[in-house]
Structures are given as C-alpha cells and as structure tokens.
C-alpha cells in the first residue's frame, strides 16, 4: 500500500557536474537515477566521433561514472536511465561490460533502446512525402538534406519501461525525451496504461521538474542570496505515488532548497504554451499543476491532467550552416569605453580595406561590462575601470571567417593603449552545426523501436 518510489536526476545536461550523480547515489535512499547527456546538437558531434572510431559515438562521461559506482549500483539495485548511448548505445554497453569485467562485477544487465536514429532513412522518408518542415521557419527539410549531420526522433517512456521490465540495471538510450527518463520508471513500477493521460502527464511533469538537475533545488534561482550552501547543492528527487502525485525533495545534509518558488521557476523554464506540453507519451497541461510546501525541502505536486498524445514525434536533426568565429580583448581605463570603440572600428575598417565585409546581422560588436546582454534595460557605467570587447562574425565562406580571426591580435601594438587579455591565439573558424526541429509521423518511427537487454 502507498508504495512510493524515489527517482532522482544527477545530470541536467552535457557538461553538468561529474560528481552530482555520485552524490545523489550515496547521499541517501534512491531507486532510480536519470542522467541527461544530450544537448540539441550533441549527436552531430557524436557522429564525427563515430566516423573516426566505430566503437565511439556515445557520452564518454557516462562510462566514467559507471566505473566509479558500479559495485554499489549492483548491490543496492539502484537503476540508471540515460540518453548517454547517443548514436551508439551498443558501443556504450560494450564499454560498460568491459568496465564490469575489470571491476569483477558480474550479473550486470544493460538494456539498449534503438530506433531513434533515422539519419540513414531520411532520403527515403523525404521521397515518401514526409516534409519534416522546420518548426521555426516552415522550410521543408529537403532544403538542407545534403548538409545534414544527424537526424533523430525523440522516443518516449514506453521503451524505457520495457527495458526495466526485462530487468535492466542500466538503460542506455539515444534520443529520448528528458521527461521519459523519469516517466519510464513510473510506467514500469505502476503499470500505467498507454491512455492513462492524467497519470502520464503527472510523470511527464515530474520529469520536467527533474530534468535540469539543480535548477529546481536552488540553482539559477532569482533570490540566490536566500539559497544555503549552493556549493553543495542537492540534486532533485521525486517521491512518486501510483496515483500520480509526487513530492519534490533532495537528500538530507545537502545545500540548496526545495520550495514552491524554486519548483515553480523550473516549471516555467523553456515553457511554450502551458496548456500543451507535447511529448511522445501525452500532452501535459501545466495549468493544472498544484504546488504545496509540505515541510522543509518538500514540495507536493498534484492535480495534474493530460490529453491524448499526438500522431507525431519530434525530429531533432542537425545540419552544417557555415562558419563562425569570435575573439575578445580587454581594454583597461582610463577612457576604457573610448578605447574599446576605437579598437572595434580599427578591426572592421581594416577588414573592409582587405575586401572582407559582413552584413550587420552576421557580425557582432559587444562591450561586456556595458550591459551587452541587456542593453536598454540595465544601466552601463559611464567610465568603467575596464571593458571586454568581444567581436564575432559568421559566413558561409570559411576563408572570410578565418581572415577576421587574423585581425584581433594586431590591436596589441597597432591599437589603442591598455589592450590586454589576448592569450588564446588567433580565434579559429568553428563550423556551425545548426538545429532542425521538425515533426515526423509516429508510425514511421514506433514500428522500428528495438529494446534489447543483455547481461554480463
């Protein structure tokens, strides 16, 4: 009766704290830990890694975490759900099995979820009439097919639950919704039906609250001065019940705080239409959420409703979109602003003399320290002690972008006085990998999802 399960999130994004999942595991009772390693264009980076070495193409931070904790995971049966599999969940599993052998841990069951990667199938999907128009611009994907570097559909919670049903201690996915990392275990534990829209919405919203790690426990909180021991912030845990209610909390003896305010801020994070939070599993309604403080660092969440899922899944593709570069120097006062303006003028005019020009939208001049992020809103100081001048360009032509990078360093001797902080060498052109969000017919993807659990 009244069984609750404890699901945590120990990794909000690729680059989050490598110690957070270890602290979450060791800091107290926990049943499941979700770990998110994929940003929007991470998969295209993994595509390149896999081209160099077919064994790679997954998030290497994850096996490093497994090496630190595997015996403990196995002993306590704390189960891990992650998208660290990237483009190569099987390769990631091989690495984990290798680690298990090295550590002498046996009986480790690892599941892989496949079917999200549609890169190879894309031409045939386009040919079959699937437009996969860019959700922001409306352009059909055929305008960039020759420049695509990855294409993955977001899968939902069902395959995650299936892998758990088959006894996986670790579930390795590629592209799967962040919310599925929490909803998957809930569907597995409570057997929620595929059309139990309210409960699926509840699990989805639990996943949304958890998905950015410490962002619901005091990280990025408006009144940061009220947050205790942020250095030791506890990552979030949802204590969930079969009826779809849950309590957001964190381990004892950790920093940060869980209040209706810290949770509400995370609820509105990256929100679109609050009544229509669309996932592969359900359309969740954020206007139904009720928050109550239930004691220190405990927020009860209830009342959640949902509506039937849509006939589409979201496709996340990436494509090459030219080159960009940016470089910066520091200008010390007195008269720092005047010096920064002069330095910028010198760079742009010398480039112009060399025949290298950029439209206004493709070049930027920012003076950091003078309200560059919020111009017209924050007040810039009239005579600051120093200014950081940051210049950037983008263009389809790599040589133009490279030429720009050669024009920053000369400021040291051929610019105004007081120029410093130029240590990184010439800024190099970076290839821009842009994001292509689209919709794709659900049945094209779901019929081909594969869940495979193996033990070593």
């Amino acid at each position: 009766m009244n069984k609750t399960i404890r699901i945590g999130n120990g990794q909000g994004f690729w680059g989050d704290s490598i110690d957070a999942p270890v602290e979450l595991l060791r800091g107290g009772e926990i049943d499941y830990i979700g770990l998110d390693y994929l940003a929007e264009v991470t998969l295209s980076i993994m595509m390149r890694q896999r081209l160099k070495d077919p064994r790679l193409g997954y998030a290497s931070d994850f096996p490093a975490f497994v090496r630190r904790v595997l015996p403990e995971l196995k002993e306590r049966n704390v189960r891990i759900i992650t998208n660290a599999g990237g483009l190569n969940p099987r390769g990631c599993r091989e690495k984990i099995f290798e680690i298990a052998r090295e550590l002498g841990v046996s009986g480790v069951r690892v599941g892989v979820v496949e079917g999200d990667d549609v890169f190879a199938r894309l031409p045939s999907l386009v040919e079959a009439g699937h437009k996969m128009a860019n959700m922001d611009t409306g352009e059909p994907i055929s305008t960039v097919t020759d420049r695509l570097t990855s294409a993955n559909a977001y899968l939902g919670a069902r395959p995650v639950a299936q892998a758990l049903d088959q006894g996986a201690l670790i579930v390795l996915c590629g592209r799967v919704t962040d919310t599925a990392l929490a909803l998957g275990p809930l569907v597995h534990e409570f057997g929620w039906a595929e059309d139990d829209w309210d409960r699926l919405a509840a699990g989805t919203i639990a996943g949304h609250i958890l998905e950015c790690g410490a962002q619901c426990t005091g990280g990025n909180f408006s009144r940061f001065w009220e947050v205790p021991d942020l250095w030791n912030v506890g990552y979030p845990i949802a204590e969930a019940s079969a009826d779809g209610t849950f309590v957001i909390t964190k381990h004892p003896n950790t920093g940060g705080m869980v209040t209706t305010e810290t949770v509400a801020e995370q609820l509105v994070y990256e929100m679109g239409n609050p009544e229509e939070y669309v996932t592969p599993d359900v359309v969740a309604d954020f206007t139904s959420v009720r928050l109550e403080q239930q004691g220190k660092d405990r927020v009860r969440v209830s009342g959640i409703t949902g509506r039937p899922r849509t006939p589409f899944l979201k496709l996340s593709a990436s494509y090459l979109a030219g080159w960009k570069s940016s470089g910066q120097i520091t200008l010390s006062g007195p008269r720092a602003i005047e010096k920064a303006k002069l330095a910028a003028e010198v760079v742009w005019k010398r480039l112009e003399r060399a025949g290298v020009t950029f439209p206004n939208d493709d070049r930027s001049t920012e003076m950091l320290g003078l309200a560059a992020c919020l111009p017209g809103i924050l007040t810039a100081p009239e005579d600051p002690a120093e200014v950081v001048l940051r210049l950037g360009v983008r263009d389809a032509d790599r040589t133009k972008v490279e030429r720009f990078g050669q024009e920053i360093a000369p400021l040291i001797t051929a610019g105004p006085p007081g120029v410093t902080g130029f240590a990184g060498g010439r800024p190099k052109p970076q290839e821009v990998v842009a994001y292509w969000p689209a919709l794709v017919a659900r049945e094209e993807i779901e019929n081909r999802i594969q869940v495979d659990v193996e033990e070593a």
Partner: protein
Amino acid sequence: MKVLLRDIAHARSGDKGDASNVGLIAASAALYEVIRREVTPERVKAHFAQVCRGPVDRYDVPNLNALNFILHDALGGGGTESLKTDAQGKTHAQGMLMMEIEVPDDLVPPARA
C-alpha cells in the same frame, strides 16, 4: 507606487530556437492580478526593445501565479548560430525583473514601503 518587478516577483528564462521564454511568477495571488494587468506583451516588447526584434506572446498560468512570455527573434539566430554572448536568453529573466510597474500601496512589500 512605482515598484520594480524584482521586489514583487521572481522569474526564469531559457531558449526555444531563436525565441526566448521568460516565466514571471508573482509573490502572491493579489500581486498576480496586478502583474496580469500591468505586464502586457506590449510593455514587455518595449522593455526589451533593444533585445527582441519580433513580437511578444503571453500565456497566463494562474495556478502558479505566473505569466509566460515568448520573445520572438531575440537571440541573434539562437543556439549554435548566434554570435551573442547570451545566445540562450539566460539573462532575460533578470532583465524582466528590472521592469517598473505601478502597484497599489497596500500590496507593496514592507521592505519597500
């Protein structure tokens, strides 16, 4: 009296392509009615005039005492394409809290009154 939103609300922002979203949460139900009246999409557009080049949409989330604003064309292309330092609108919530609005005297928090 005139009050900065930071004294009666809190906020968080993030990105959605080339748009940013700013969720603004009032400190109480009474203050929510005030910000619902005062913080219109037009005022937000004017406040972010040098940041947001597109329209501003607003959604009401009364159960959280919150308003959700979408600032279109506000990130210089967004994501990996943008040349801006704040390519993801992470600072926009902080900017929103610097908006000044008229609040009935009896609702102004004691620290400010």
